């Protein structure tokens, strides 16, 4: 248990450092790489908690796809070399603190009212990928199909937008 919490603190520190660096660094590409570190830290935290599928999916989707997407967006839009400060500094602290306090309050409320805190029974063993798949395909098949449909629509939409732009330039 102590080893588990030691790894937890190391991973949590990596995640927090990554997230803070993403806010504070100047170069946009550096920020994107720091975000990738934070994503990877989150993924390993899930793995540390025994949620294998969630952790690996987090690594695959966020580090592999989202971070690369962010980097591509930066490079294709404004060069990524600008040294301008990320946001105007004057208005930041108050709004930032307010938003952070609100999010913290909601999360704290959710944690203290959750089933896990109040039940004395030990939690069930972490679900295997097989169990997750069975549940997804049996109990939650409608949401799954809806998400699939939505993603397909988004994919087709993206392709159509790209096609129109090409015709206009030619």
């Amino acid at each position, binding site marked *: 248990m102590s080893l588990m919490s030691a790894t937890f603190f190391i991973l949590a520190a990596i995640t927090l450092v990554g997230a803070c660096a993403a806010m504070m660094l100047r*170069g946009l*590409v*550096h920020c994107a*790489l720091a975000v*990738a570190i934070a994503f*990877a830290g989150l*993924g390993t935290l899930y793995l540390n908690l025994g949620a*294998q*599928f969630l952790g*690996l*999916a987090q*690594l*695959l989707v966020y*580090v*592999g*796809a989202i*971070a*690369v997407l962010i*980097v*591509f967006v930066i*490079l294709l839009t404004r060069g*990524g070399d600008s040294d301008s400060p990320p946001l105007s500094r004057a208005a930041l602290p108050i709004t930032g603190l307010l938003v952070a306090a609100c999010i913290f309050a909601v999360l704290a409320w959710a944690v203290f009212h959750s089933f896990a805190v109040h039940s004395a029974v030990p939690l069930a063993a972490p679900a*295997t*990928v*097989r169990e997750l798949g069975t549940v997804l395909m049996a109990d939650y098949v409608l949401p799954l199909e809806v998400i699939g449909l939505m993603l397909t629509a988004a994919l087709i939409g993206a392709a159509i937008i790209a096609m129109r732009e090409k015709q206009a330039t030619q």
Partner: protein
Amino acid sequence: MLDQVFVLLKHWLLGYSPVVLQPAVSILLTILPILLVFPVLFALTTVLERKGLGRIQNRYGPNRVGFFGILQPMADAVKSLTKEDIVPASADHTVHFLAPLILLAVAFLPYAVLPIGRNMIAADLDAGVLFFFAIGAISELSVFMAGWSSRNKYSLLGAMRAVAQMISYEVPLLLSSVAVIMAAGSLSTVVIVEKQSGFSGIFPHWYVLTPWGFAGFILFMIAATAETNRSPFDLPEGESEIIAGYYIEYSGFKFALFFLGEYLGMFAISGLGITLFLGGWTAPLPFLTWVPSWIWFFAKLLGLIIGFIWVRGTLPRLRMDQLMNFAWKFMLPMALVVVVSAGAWRFLGQGVTRWLVSLVFIAVAYVLLARGVETRNRIAKRTYRFAE
């Protein structure tokens, strides 16, 4: 006995360590062989590749160091260690330094889930195949880091090409593995190998010997070639166009690290191909089961490496539009058909029907898609706009 010699050796060594340290020593004894064996295989492969390419191109290849040039990797290692480590003045020093390290770390991690022999796997994860791909996704980012931080137009171009290519070919790679995962009903590499052990007559139950498995294996290996940036998919490092792509500004030992990382990636993805389609460490014929399991794994690995070298010496490099067209208009639909065909295979029960249905799916899709690709690029006499 010989089959389990390394497992027994590990337990024997473990017996000599104090009980408190045993978990740590056990981990060390698992990781060290991986860290030693695969770089040695890399050294051997460089000689094999240079000799093989030399043979294909009608020249000798390295033949000065050692017997038939066998010691060439030693000379290369000494050379890269003694070379000056140059970092461009305007480069981003931190990212430039981190990129090869991350690439190498990420190249070693997938070996954790590859079953090299019976009971010889570092971490038998419940979601082993997913782990492999999740780690592979990180290497894209390290390639980008290398290309971007060098602050060189060629290296950035190379990195963009590499990332675009890796993302495009990751889709057919994943989909062709999904077919195997559906057939085996598990994401664990150990279970997938176990499902392929056993024989009908003299034929093993490898997935490559089914219609969908054969198509899936071909797709997987093509996508693996693209994923590891090897010829004919070596646009990211095309020497004649962008000199060396994303590692143009690396010299000395860092360059060697990139080289090592690339080859380790190739071995790892070949190892996954063996695990998924070629039955992992199982023997190809029933009367050969007495040969130790790890010998079969490495024999298959060497076979695939030789295939990679052969392809590199034979095929010319693709153009960017050909690369993308091939990925999205042929590989992706074909991989989807393979998935459907594997589903039909699973639910049609034992018998001739599933062979026929699966075969018809693959054959029809292949003919239609290949025809579509062919008619799109009309072959005609080349017309020159500027020179004639």
